[in-house]
């Protein structure tokens, strides 16, 4: 079992929630919302981003070492939780970065708007429906082998978890816990909110949508459609990256975010 954070070791976020938060660097704040990989797996990216920014990367309740209160079962719950938390930490001029599942969450937060958020970055985000009812817009991560999952998520094979019988026990525990949280929040409708795309035009901050060129979970075409639904959003492809683009190309993604938020 993993030892989760509590009131003393973690960061109280209101509503009975305690978050496991990674804070690095100083400067203009960048809040990074992780995907199913968890904040631990994003460390290289976060560290690079923190060279010139104050990086704040919470683990969502149920992920990483953050406990999940029973009531917290939806992306909507997470959205309001983080909107409140931005008030609570009195953050200003925030660049909100959402990675994959965290991209869905960041989009939900952005349509609800907060004066504390100045810029939005989505990286290989899920969360919307773009195709017809018979199209599988988002590959079914719960119905594929680990090998297939790794290949679709990682363009750089050595960054993938690989054979879990050889992986460190703690890493496998994190994977198991993170996937459970992903299923809880995203099982049905599968990793998207059917209503969200309609409201993306409420996003009123400059937005950058980055996409791994080799994303095998949600295609670059899906990413373009995402960007098209957000007023003024810029879309950028990232070579040498799959779904978890920030793990495949941590320096490139960090550099593009720095440029965008300069």
């Amino acid at each position: 079992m993993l030892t989760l954070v509590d009131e003393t070791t973690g960061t109280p976020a209101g509503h009975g929630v305690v978050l496991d938060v990674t804070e690095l660097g100083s400067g203009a704040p960048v809040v990074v919302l992780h995907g199913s990989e968890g904040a631990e797996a994003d460390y290289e990216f976060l560290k690079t981003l923190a060279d010139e920014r104050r990086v704040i990367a919470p683990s969502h309740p149920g992920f990483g070492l953050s406990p999940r209160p029973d009531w917290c079962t939806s992306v909507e719950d997470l959205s309001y939780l983080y909107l409140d938390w931005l008030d609570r930490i009195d953050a200003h001029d925030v660049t909100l970065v959402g990675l994959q599942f965290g991209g869905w969450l960041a989009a939900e937060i952005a349509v609800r708007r907060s004066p504390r958020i100045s810029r939005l970055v989505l990286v290989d985000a899920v969360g919307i429906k773009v195709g017809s009812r018979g199209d599988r817009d988002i590959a079914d991560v719960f119905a594929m082998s680990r090998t297939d999952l790794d290949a679709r998520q990682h363009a750089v094979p050595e960054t993938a978890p690989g054979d879990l019988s050889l992986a460190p026990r703690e890493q496998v525990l994190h994977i198991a816990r993170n996937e459970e949280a992903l299923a809880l929040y995203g099982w049905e409708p599968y990793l998207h909110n059917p209503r969200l795309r309609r409201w993306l035009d409420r996003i009123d901050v400059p937005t950058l949508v980055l996409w791994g060129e080799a994303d095998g979970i949600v295609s670059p075409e899906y990413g373009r459609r995402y960007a098209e639904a957000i007023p003024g959003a810029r879309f950028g492809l990232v070579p040498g990256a799959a779904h978890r683009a920030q793990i495949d190309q941590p320096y490139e993604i960090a550099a593009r975010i720095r440029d965008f938020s300069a």
Partner: protein
Amino acid sequence: MQFWHFSETPYPDLPPEPEFDSIRVTLPNRVLDPALAARLWDRYLAEWQVADDAGLNVMLNEHHSTATCMDPAGPVVAGALARLTKQARILLLGNPVANRKDPVRIAEEMALVDLLSHGRLDVGFVRGVPYEVSAVNSNPVRMNERMWEAIDLIHKAWTTHDGPFNWEGEFFTHRQVNIWPRPLQQPAPPMWVTSTSTGGAARVADAGHVLATFLTGYEGTRKVFQAYRDRRLATGGELPADDRFAYAALVYTGRTDEEGLEGARKLMWYISSNKVPSQFVLPPGYIPYAQRAAGLAGQSSPYDFHTKTLDELIADGIVFAGSPATVRGQIERFYERVGGFGHLLLMGQAGHMDHEETVAGIRAFAEHVKPGLEHLLPAAAPVGV
């Protein structure tokens, strides 16, 4: 003791195993010849009738998107059995309640089957197996909570007779719940719930339902039955009667030990033909994450029987097979070692075992084993009657 003939109604005529990835979820249904499926259904129903004629009860279940079980709608087959059998009690074990969107519909289906069978229905509830969460799009996280809310709602629907009620729970919302018709058995048909964990057994004990376990062998079974007993005593109740406990094993009775073992080898299809990849065996949230992590890291489950021989399965109490005297001895030993139980669910058909062989096994058990076991629960009436 009550005895229940159970068949999973498989479709065994499959391509060689290396040619498909999974017998569940993804095996394309073009593999199934509908005409053969219809003939198989004729014989499976006939086998339940044979069991009824021989004085056994009957049990059926429900699975989805799998060649191991051609019954994705248990209530439909239970309705057919209600009219095709005469004396047998009919156990549907179970309704996969955590996988069904509408518990009120289940309450209605079961009430109807109870009427059609003139009160011979026992209603089982199961959470649903891990493989099927994808096939039925059922969130594997918090399934237990969902199952129990569904059971509570079904029970309330059966037992509320003074007009509609609302249900605005965490997982299910309904308004104007007022089922027509209502069950013949009052206040409700007997209820069964499966569990293989001690925590789950305690919850079943609190509700007072029959606790059933499948293929858990001597040790696993003893632990969950004991957890039920302990819970009842700890909460001020009395030691529960044997009729609160049910065990499902693979059972084949021959005229001789060799004939019994030969039948059991065919039942092993049930264990050996379960090629399912890890992503369907270990969906996130179905089991505690630390346990799933061990599975992901390659540790095998205690209920993975693939590598066991028939002798080992018999030694573990998962298969009862041999001559009538041998089978009787195995069941008596099991009874002693688990602290008593009141229902034996006999998985008496699997895979390529043909009709004649299945019928011979059912009759041999009913005629030559059952009479010798009645001392285990001499005064037992069917549950709930």
